[in-house]
């Protein structure tokens, strides 16, 4: 069983990654299920984004699970939307992209939302990388401020900040590492060595990356079969409370 913990499904920015396209690529790459986000922060400038996103989840409940990509600048409106998404529309997690929301993860406004997710039992996927607002040590401060929320650090700090990602995850037990899109071939091995297989999730960042590239990174890590089961499916199933998947 392979569950992709980090995939995108939307039509935006020239990317045409509809559910059909995503499912085809998943099949090519041997991915059984995917946890997806859209490409627009909601609420925001794209009024149809929310409906597109939950529409994809509804259409493929056994294949696709969702993190709602939230825009904290909308305050209470955004909080209400997230509550509704979890209660009524099957959303299981929250996504925060510091570059597009123009807020670092340790900003008070962001921390409010990360805490809200924790209260609702939803994990938060936070993009990290080389960009100024998306640094692992900023996510570490967020993790410290929100000990009751599980946070997945997407991309593990990009090219130059991966060591910070490891250091942050070592320090904060509520931080999980997602090596998707990280260009270092040995990144999965480094992640597992740092925090154990229990806190590393497999992601593809589709359509930015292809599943076969990301699977190769897991292969190169030479994990034991139990470790591989956790990384490929068990951890994200536990975090997202996916039905029918052994954690």
């Amino acid at each position, binding site marked *: 069983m392979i569950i992709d913990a980090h995939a995108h499904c939307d039509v935006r920015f020239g990317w045409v990654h509809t559910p059909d396209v995503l499912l085809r690529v998943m099949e090519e790459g041997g991915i059984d299920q995917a946890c997806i986000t859209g490409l627009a922060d909601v609420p925001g400038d794209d009024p149809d984004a929310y409906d597109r996103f939950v529409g994809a989840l509804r259409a493929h409940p056994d294949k696709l699970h969702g993190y709602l990509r939230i825009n904290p600048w909308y305050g209470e409106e955004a909080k209400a939307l997230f509550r509704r998404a979890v209660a009524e529309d099957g959303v299981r997690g929250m996504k925060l992209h510091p570059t597009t929301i*123009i807020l670092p993860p340790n900003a008070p406004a962001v921390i409010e939302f990360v805490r809200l997710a924790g209260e609702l039992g939803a994990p938060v996927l936070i993009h990290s*990388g*080389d960009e*100024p607002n998306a*640094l692992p040590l900023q996510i570490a*401060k967020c993790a410290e401020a929100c000990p009751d929320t599980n946070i997945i650090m997407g991309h593990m700090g*990009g*090219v130059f900040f991966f060591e910070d990602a490891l250091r942050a995850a070592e320090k904060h037990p509520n931080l999980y590492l997602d090596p998707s899109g990280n260009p270092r071939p040995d990144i999965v091995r480094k992640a597992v060595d740092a925090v154990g297989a229990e806190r590393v999730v497999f992601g593809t960042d589709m359509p930015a990356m292809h599943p076969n590239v990301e699977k190769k990174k897991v292969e190169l890590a030479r994990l034991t079969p139990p470790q591989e089961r956790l990384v490929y499916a068990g951890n994200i199933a536990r975090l997202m409370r996916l039905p029918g998947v052994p954690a």
Partner: protein
Amino acid sequence: MRWVGKNVPMKTNRILAAGKGTYVADIDLPGVCHMAIVRSPYARARLRGVDTKAAAALPGVLAVATGADVQREMQPIPVHTQALGEKRIPIWALAVDELRYVGEPVAAVVAEDRWTALEAARLVEIQCDELPAVVDPNRALEPGSPLVVEAWGDNVLSSGVVHQGDPDAKLAAASGRVSGKIRTQRYTGVSIEPRGYLASYERYRDRVTIYGSIQSPHSLRIFLAETLGMRENQIHVIEPHVGGAFGLKLPTYPEEPLVCWFARKLERPVRWIEERTENLLAGGHAREMELSFEAGYEPDGRVTALKVRLVADLGAPSALCGWGMASVAAFVIPGVYKIPDVRIERYSVVTNKCPWNAYRAYGKEAAGFMLERMMDLVAEKTGLDRAEVRLRNFIQPDEFPFKQVTGASLDSGDYPRVLRRLLEEGGWSRFAEEQAAARARGEYIGIGMSYELTPEGGCIPQSSLLSAFDGTRVQIRPKGEVVVMTGVTSPGCGNETGIAQIVAEELGVPIDDIEVLQGDTDVCPFGLGNSSSRSVIFGGSAAKLAARELRDKMARVASRMLEVGEEDIEFGDGKIFLRGAPARSVSFEDVAGQVYRAAFTLPVCDEEPGLDVTRYFRHGNFEAMNKKPDPEGRLNFYSTWPNGATLAVVQVDPDTGVVQVRKLKSVHDAGVLVNPMLVDANLHGAFAQALGGAFFEDLVYDESGQLLTTTFMDYTIPTAADLPSFEIGHECTPSPFNPLGAKGAGESGITGPMAAVASAIDDALRQAGISVHMMEMPFTPQRVWRAIEEARG
């Protein structure tokens, strides 16, 4: 009406803001085909062969070329000057025997469409023996290092020493000494529009026309003619709208002759548009320098001696002009300060990395960064205020023109006035209270300041690219319309508007009646395009001279038409009138019409027919030198010397190393400002690029010579969200050496912010009880965090 000094919106705003600019990629020619470049994946290798069979067999491919073809049918690409004694190798448009950096062009493919060209490029097989590369300039200087050019015997492109007085004795005698090493990292300009060229061929005239995202059409024509073995008359260079250049589009890149060569060969238009990864790999790099310094000072803060060792990593040899940045860095030391005993050693080193091309600030930034860090250290050691140390070392206003130890001839300035205004307006002396209040909230903020000297109007002996003159033609047409054709160009920075203002002021016509034509070798007088802030200084001065000559002629004709004395004539609002009696007037259009249509009448018959003048302006700051070395063997390389002071306030998070710039203020002296609004706009852009370099941008190579930062995901640049709102003030000490008094502002604003934020970070961390000196750029969160951890032990 006065036009010079007025905030006039850029003439091109309406077109560009509406998205209706015409860039190279927008130009459509029938039958256009597309070029793709096969680039070296190796940092250093001996080339055995290039197999192009599979690529040539791909349907849709029209031509494939390798270094062997180029060597057979072209000449090496020339360099812009050979007068400074740098080592040289022949630079071919495609590699012929050795590969010297990842991204070097090895083969070129032309196909019916871009995708086929890219696919065919993928099929080209490079056969070579990979060799160990050298990517560290200090390692490159060691005996036994791999050699970038084996025939040279070492990796030094050039070196030089400036020595004045007895710095060793003065250092020994000084009451105190400071030392350190600063490093500016390798980075580049990343203009929004990458490079791009489109060439077409007219068989009946055997003539090539190239449209290029370029800066210097006439210079490019010279270099293309030499490379392609054609006459200059057979080459027509056009610069359409350009989406940013910053020096990095100065000639000559291999792709420029290649598109022309293919177009002539195939008798079809050929286009090449650079991709962002190519831009980062091979579009010209800059900045990578290390300056080790030792300075002696007295208790009153005066610096009495300075020794500097400069090592610059130029990347691989090329036909580009970037190598000069290392020489300029050495040339501008000790900047705005009077330090009598100085020794500067420079090593311009080649490595297996992308060659340097010119980039805004052109080496002045590294020198300025070092000098300002040095002054901060002296302040720290003496316990004096950072500003006070600078004030005590400045060249004084009554000492201009000032001959610096390197031979630099500084035209004008009042550094104390500029700095004092900055300190007053920037709240320097009141900052301690703000800092204490922040500390009480758990925030660490710091203030820093710096002084920059950014000489402009560069002039290199025997150069076909950088010289201190330019030409402008002003034509008044029979209906009174004014057309200005100039050899300087405007890659998006508004020179056309400034030049129109200068002409409008002379002729008393509205600016909308003036059309400025640039960037066309068939239309404009010979000139050297855009670089080194030369457009207004040289092109604008030439425009002023030409317009003045036309004004005098129009005044003579009008005086005869009005039957008044020529000395009583005035121009304004499109009219020519009797001073003190504006009702007694003729329209500008009527006088122009009289000149053209009534050439044999009394008002005109003593004048040469026509209203068309071309003038060349040569800058006066070189007359005394006559471009020959002075008795000490020194040359002056710059016309004007703009300068400015910068103040920065930052907040540092010691837990993450993240630095937020809360305030950036500058007081700047560019002499007379033709258009203050456009000067501010240029400075805004410079500040953004400066902060990009200070905090984000870094071209990182691994030890095998592979570039790790080839996309904007990993080569990060600042966004508006990362920048504060900038504050700018202006002072004016006119340059005495040109008729405008202008000094240029195109490169200002890079050096100051770098040094000011470094100073401010140090200051902020002092509040947290942490002693650091940020000497190495960029100040990434990781580097700041590590410095904090080291300081904490």
